């Protein structure tokens, strides 16, 4: 698990040691956490325009064609940054729009962070756009 430990709200039912094991496993795998105070919380600010373009393209592809749980990835050779999105829930709203909740992983400048609470709906033009809760 590669996120700021302070921002982590453990699942209530999970034994405390399980979360610790996961963190240790992630650290052992080389994931860098954002525990250090100089690491920004919002990696989106650090992304280059080309990163954003790739991330948006991957988000569109992943949400348009991916099953729930399927991971779509991007990697930018120009910056060395990478990311992935994973749809986790698909639903339809009263307005008739298809929407998906998805997780996004960003690996920017060697900092890896996962953003869980993303929501996007397929607009009338077929573009998946973020929506609020």
């Amino acid at each position: 698990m590669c996120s700021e430990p302070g921002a982590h709200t453990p699942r209530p039912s999970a034994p405390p040691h399980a979360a610790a094991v996961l963190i240790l496993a992630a650290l052992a795998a080389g994931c860098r956490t954002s525990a250090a105070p100089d690491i920004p919380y919002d990696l989106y600010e650090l992304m280059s325009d080309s990163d954003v373009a790739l991330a948006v393209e991957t988000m569109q592809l992943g949400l348009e064609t991916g099953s729930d749980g399927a991971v779509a990835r991007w990697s930018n050779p120009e910056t060395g940054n990478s990311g992935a999105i994973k749809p986790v829930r698909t639903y339809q709203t009263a307005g008739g729009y298809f929407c998906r909740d998805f997780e996004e992983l960003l690996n920017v400048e060697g900092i890896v962070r996962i953003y869980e609470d993303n929501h996007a709906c397929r607009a009338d033009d077929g573009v998946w756009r973020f929506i609020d809760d």
Partner: protein
Amino acid sequence: MQPTPAPARARPLLAALALSCLATAAVADGLDSAGGEAAAARYAEVLDAAGGGFQRPVGAAVVVFDPAETEALVAAGWQPSADTRGFRDLGERVTTFVAIAEALGMDPAIGALQANWGTPQENGIAELAENANAARYARDVARYDIAELERHRADALAVLEEMQARATAGDPAETADTVAALEAEIASVDARLAELRAQEEVLTGELAALENELAAAMGKADETMPVGWATADLDVNGDGTVDRADLEAALDGAKPAEGGAVVQ
């Protein structure tokens, strides 16, 4: 801030680590949850450049799709095989159907699902159910007539036996006409009974076939819809289609003719 490119040989490793992290995150929740807003702002420049957007309020979630339903939607390019005639687009159809379901006191998800995958009328379920109901009614009428005739025959037979007893005890000539009339009547009833029993047998067979066909149609519909939702009737005005007129009727307090379900 100028990003520092990672060494080329390190990229696959980073990608692998990133994905292993994502897999880990699938197990442990509670990670950053404020990303959506930041991502929306950062990505908006690209997304907004595409123009378009939402032409009506997005609204709250009314139906959550299971993985199989999601697969079907992905495979269909997010264009389910619904007939959108009479509506501007699928979205307007969904909105209307959801509103009808809500006005009828049903789960709004029923409206959303039928808007996506067809109403009982569109799937042929309503017609099959109507035919099955008609066959069931005809069979029940035949059974009622059989029961009535059997009762009548039993009455006639009792009278006949009484007449025959009188004839034996008294003057046969006195009862002969009555006995003959009763025997003729019983013969007539027997003929009619035979006819009705044959009819009842045919109707029972037809009903069984229709019920099988109906079950198959419902099962087919249930491949993409939760069981039972395929049969809910949103055709409030009974004209064979679900449209805005049904919403207006539902909002006026009308109900579908058969209490909200086409299958009895």
